[in-house]
């Protein structure tokens, strides 16, 4: 940042509030402005925002590169799907259970994994995804194996006597929008708190953080669990949106997509991750017509991103933000 505090107060009004209102209005009006397919892409982007927020806490704030998100995403999806199909429980129960279970499973996995150093940790987290997929494929009595679980009901709420079902694309969009907004606020609160600053301290220098009394081991473990819980929540919404889950929910491709959202958008920034999920998931859904070309374009985008925008889009967003603030 430049020495803004020395310069004279800039002419013109602070446009940040106005921009925020415009963005919120656009988000609320999206179903009326967009076609069905674009709305679908937007829903997927918002669903992926949840695991991406979790991963951002891990990669961007605590400095642990992980590929495990798809495993917890899958656990969340299966938990939610099984509860809905077997017991017919309402959506909010499945949703909370998916998050809690994913977070709880992260504890026994995190204890051995977090003892490892950088590269080994990455490989170990990749292993969770591969083993998760194998379990989903082979525990046939529970998961029906490769056939997957189908007929997962659309989100249905029951509070006392009143109950309603979220069925259309537009109403599903509003549901996801609310969930994504709540998740964003939650992450913002975590990051702004003292715990968030401790996480950044661990990212910058773990030994130093330890020496000033931050319990680094406990922090890393808790952040790993929180990030898994976010992934589980995302998986739950995903299962209810697509109404089917299969072992392919545990795929490496999802982990890399989430990693790309975080690193491409800007690790360690909230706005960057939101922007990244809209850009990368939206873009890749839009290119779905030609799958091979889509993947090639995706790969080339990755390379361009790595070498031309090594910090992701965060610097651009920063500049835009200060432009709104100062308007010089």
């Amino acid at each position, binding site marked *: 940042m430049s020495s803004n505090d020395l310069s004279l107060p800039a002419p013109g009004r602070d446009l940040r509030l106005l921009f925020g209102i415009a963005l919120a209005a656009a988000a609320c009006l999206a179903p009326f402005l967009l076609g069905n397919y674009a709305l679908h892409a937007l829903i997927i982007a918002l669903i992926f925002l949840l695991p991406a927020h979790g991963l951002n806490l891990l990669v961007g704030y605590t400095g642990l590169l992980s590929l495990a998100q798809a495993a917890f995403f899958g656990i969340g999806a299966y938990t939610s799907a099984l509860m809905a199909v077997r017991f017919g429980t309402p959506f909010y129960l499945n949703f909370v259970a998916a998050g809690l279970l994913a977070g709880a499973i992260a504890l026994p996995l995190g204890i051995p994994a977090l003892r490892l150093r950088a590269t080994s940790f990455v490989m170990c987290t990749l292993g969770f995804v591969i083993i998760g997929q194998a379990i989903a494929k082979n525990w046939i009595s529970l998961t029906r194996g490769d056939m997957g679980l189908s007929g997962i009901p659309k989100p249905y709420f029951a509070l006392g006597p009143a109950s309603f079902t979220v069925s259309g694309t537009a109403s599903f969009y509003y549901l996801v929008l609310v969930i994504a907004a709540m998740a964003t606020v939650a992450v913002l609160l975590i990051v702004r708190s003292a715990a968030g600053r401790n996480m950044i301290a661990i990212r910058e220098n773990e030994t130093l953080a330890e020496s000033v009394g931050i319990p680094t081991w406990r922090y890393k473990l808790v952040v790993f669990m929180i990030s898994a819980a976010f992934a589980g929540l995302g998986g739950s919404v995903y299962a209810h949106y697509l109404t089917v889950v299969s072992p392919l929910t545990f795929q490496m491709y999802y982990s890399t997509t989430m990693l790309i959202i975080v690193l491409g958008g800007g690790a360690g920034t909230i706005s960057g991750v939101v922007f990244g999920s809209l850009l990368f998931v939206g873009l890749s859904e839009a290119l779905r017509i030609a799958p091979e070309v889509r993947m090639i374009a995706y790969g080339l*985008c990755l*390379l361009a991103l790595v070498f031309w925008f090594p910090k992701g889009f965060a610097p651009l967003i920063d500049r835009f933000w200060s432009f709104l603030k100062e308007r010089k």
Partner: protein
Amino acid sequence: MLTMIAEQIVNGIVSGSVYAIVAVGMTMIFGVLRAINFAHGEYYMLGTFGAWFAIEYLELPYPVALVIGVIATAVIAVVVGKFVMQRIVGAPPETGVLATLGIALVLQNTVILMFGGGYKFFSGGYIEPVSIFGFTLAEQRVLIIIVCILVFVGLEVIVTYSRIGKAMRAVSQNIECCAVVGIDVPQVALRTFILGACLAALSGVLTAPVNVSVYGGMGEIITFKTLPVIIMGGLGNVRGTFFAAMILGIAESLVATYVGLQFRDTVGFATLMLVLMWRPHGLFSMQARF
């Protein structure tokens, strides 16, 4: 019973040899670039496709196709190395992960776009059975074991005695000091990368007659199988990689026979996690270097 176990172990040694040849390239690339090459299996796939193309379209015999497969991969590796891998030297670890993932996507889908995503039949190689020490094996499998031994002896000699081998070891120890004493680090990185890619391609062409089918997505599985091998062997450790690959190959073949074929592909990562809990630096490294 005992002969059956022995047979499975021999089979395991064959697949272990395949993994070893691929993994040793990956581990050497890691040593020099400090980057996990997530695209490494794709060079295995490219080599196989090169050879398949030579046999199917140019109607060349298998040995010539083998050379063509490896050379085609080398050419692609030069391009990728020049434009991407050289830039990874000294970059943060995320850069390596994302860049190589990007390359994997591009290579794999370009091949699928050109040749279609379906399975192709690989005709060629030496599939006549021979009998050695009471075991009946396809000639190709014997060839794989022999080539694997030759590759490792050759690499041991190169890494220990040749100029480029010494430079590789030096770069894997300390990049700044190498630059100070005048070692051309990007050049060493490029050559290591091309060598690694060619070894992967060689392994691919050697395995193709055994696996029979060739398809665009085959590289990904190989990448996922070699990743645990290089970690278990200790990153950058050539000898460790050899033994880790053999352990994985034998474990896989025993699990496939006695536990169930569907669990074969998880053996690698399951073993890796157990090993890492017990020895966080891998089986064959005294201390963590990376």
